[in-house]
């Protein structure tokens, strides 16, 4: 992917068992019906534009989903799979979509989740994590831990500060 000019569009099918690394400066947009990758990494930008269901990562891979860039969930329903939890990147945005992980999500530094939609899975804010809902707001259906800030959000799980 690094050898191709940005932006990179996946309009049809991408089905690979390996980890897809999106390098810094690269933007990839997923429009197609199938986007299966064994893992997801890198400091680039990945965004979804269609209201489709996608599953990324492997339950046996502890490095399955480890992003430092941005993830645009948009209206999609993303199920992220990682053996010991999903590391989200600097910015994760939802626009009516859902984001789920059975092993939970973790933010690092001043990472942020924003927009409107639903998050399924425990969420560790880290030290300065930010949840910033907008429009119809965000709904968190898992437990929330850590320190940071939460706004325009409905929390259905437990809250453990610190």
């Amino acid at each position, binding site marked *: 992917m690094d050898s191709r000019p940005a932006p990179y569009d996946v309009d049809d099918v991408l089905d690979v068992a390996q980890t897809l690394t999106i390098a810094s400066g690269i933007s990839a947009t997923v429009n197609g019906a199938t986007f299966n990758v064994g893992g997801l990494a890198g400091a680039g930008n990945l965004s979804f534009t269609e209201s489709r269901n996608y599953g990324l990562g492997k339950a046996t891979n502890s490095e399955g989903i480890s992003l430092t860039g941005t993830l645009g969930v948009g209206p999609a329903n993303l199920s992220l799979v990682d053996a010991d939890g999903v590391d989200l990147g600097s910015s994760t945005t939802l626009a009516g979509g859902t984001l789920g992980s059975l092993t939970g999500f973790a933010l690092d530094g001043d990472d942020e989740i924003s927009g409107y939609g639903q998050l399924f899975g425990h969420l560790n804010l880290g*030290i300065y994590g930010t949840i910033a809902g907008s429009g119809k707001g965000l709904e968190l259906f898992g437990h929330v831990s850590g320190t940071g800030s939460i706004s325009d959000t409905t929390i259905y799980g437990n809250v453990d500060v610190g």
Partner: protein
Amino acid sequence: MATSTWANSAGQLTLTDVVIGSDNTVVTLEIGGADSSMHDTITLAGDTTLAGNLEVQLIDSFLPQIGDTFSLFSLEPEVALQGDFNDILLPDLATGLWDASGLLTSGNLLVISTTRDPCSLGGDTSCNTADLDALYTVFNTSVPPTDALFDLNADNVVGGADLTEWLSLAASINGYKSLYLRGDTDLDHDVDTLDLTGMIMNYTAPPAAAQPGLPVTPTAMETQTPWT
């Protein structure tokens, strides 16, 4: 690899326009010391709807002492707080009692004495008129912000019931078998002309009394001296 360990340290969380959407939610705050850097804090910076339970846990082998105050919530001005916690679960204390009555107003969780000391109100150890003077300075106020020390009957209000309680407790401590009567301004366990003289010397007519038809607010002295 995610660092998804659960919190077990002091931290700060700011909530702005947040709704706790489930009665099953448990909000956990940890206390590892009296200093604000050693316990969790939630800042309510925007309208917040509460539900579920609040659970306070002690960490780092910390043992709260009588007089400790923990500012667990910080409510910024103009914030509208809706709902409430169904229950507040507090850990056992080795000494004292928790006072969570002001948790969602002042934001403070206090450790208070199991026995209220009526003689300490005036700043010394004896039961005397200094205690009454101190009591009247906070008469008809709520606890908190008024120190729970004055709330002798633990109803979160400092008022006539606390005065009655003080007159009973102080008389007993000072060796009398019956309570001090209201009007016993010198606390000699007798309401007599000395008390009346003292009241006359200290009497100040309320300003509103000069305006017929307006209700008259009793002064502190009058409040203390209805021979009823």
